[in-house]
């Protein structure tokens, strides 16, 4: 594929095309920051109002599963960054391997999460009838836990789909990763999902341990 073929018709050159797609994905991620930001502000307000209930509630979260998942996602951020580096260097095969490793780590996260959710439900940690903690404000924490981790898991599932698509396109040589920002843009989204967990982990799993 020549350089010329890699440029979409609305752009003058590769540098302009690259910058435009980078601004685009960062602007999208800024809207995602505000999406999760609303949940974080909600969490902050309620934690400020009911500090004792939040510490008591967070103590019940499964810190082992949470930590394993944090490690899995941090590792996946490295493999996805390697996919970008290999792609830029024109090593499409290695880039694809790094993408597959990332997908595997993402699936591992979901498996751990499934075990964790099952345990939480059996433990009576789903808000509503049968919720076992007191005071009642602990339900606010656990509502936020289910919403935040649930929305995060949805983002992760989308990310897995995106990375698998990119992997297939790379295999078919549908684009040249040296000139095309498809790999980079998708990988930035994956990093964002990791960053969300970087904040959910200390907010949902670590309070009230000492």
């Amino acid at each position, binding site marked *: 594929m020549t350089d010329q073929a890699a440029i979409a018709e609305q752009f003058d050159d590769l540098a302009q095309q690259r910058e435009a797609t980078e*601004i685009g994905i960062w602007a999208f991620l800024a809207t995602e*920051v505000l999406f999760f*930001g609303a949940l974080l502000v909600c969490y902050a307000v309620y934690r*400020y109002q009911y500090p004792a209930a939040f510490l008591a509630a967070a103590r019940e979260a499964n810190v082992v599963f949470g930590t394993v998942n944090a490690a899995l996602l*941090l590792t996946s951020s*490295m493999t996805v960054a390697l996919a970008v580096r290999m792609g830029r260097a024109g090593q499409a095969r290695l880039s694809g391997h790094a993408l597959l490793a990332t997908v595997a780590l993402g699936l591992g996260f979901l498996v751990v999460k499934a075990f964790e959710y099952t345990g939480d439900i059996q433990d009576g940690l789903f808000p509503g009838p049968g919720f076992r903690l007191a005071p009642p404000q602990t339900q606010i924490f656990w509502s936020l836990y289910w919403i935040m981790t649930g929305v995060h898991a949805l983002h992760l599932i989308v990310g897995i789909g995106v990375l698998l698509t990119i992997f297939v396109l790379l295999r078919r040589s549908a684009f040249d990763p040296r000139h095309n920002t498809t790999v980079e843009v998708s990988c930035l989204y994956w990093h964002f999902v990791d960053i969300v967990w*970087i904040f959910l982990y*200390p907010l949902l799993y*670590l309070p009230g341990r*000492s």
Partner: protein
Amino acid sequence: MKALFRKSALLPEVAAWVGLLVLMVVSLVSSYVPLGLGNGIANLAIAGVQMLVVVFVLMHLKEGGALPRLAAAAGAFWLAIFFTLTFSDFLTR
């Protein structure tokens, strides 16, 4: 896969990964030490550092131009406004 491991040794991405895992363990261990309010502050400060490592090293923002950085900063800017205005209410009741 083997070639991937061989080629990736000693890259900044791998160094960043080691740093991120160390920070995660520090955060985890620190949360079992009674520090009062300091626990939450330490956890969030560490998360902030982790985020900066991911953004600048792994997301390669360090190598990007000014405009992508500006677009990225916009997210943080509006989030700061969100928190400031909300808490200007709750902290002054």
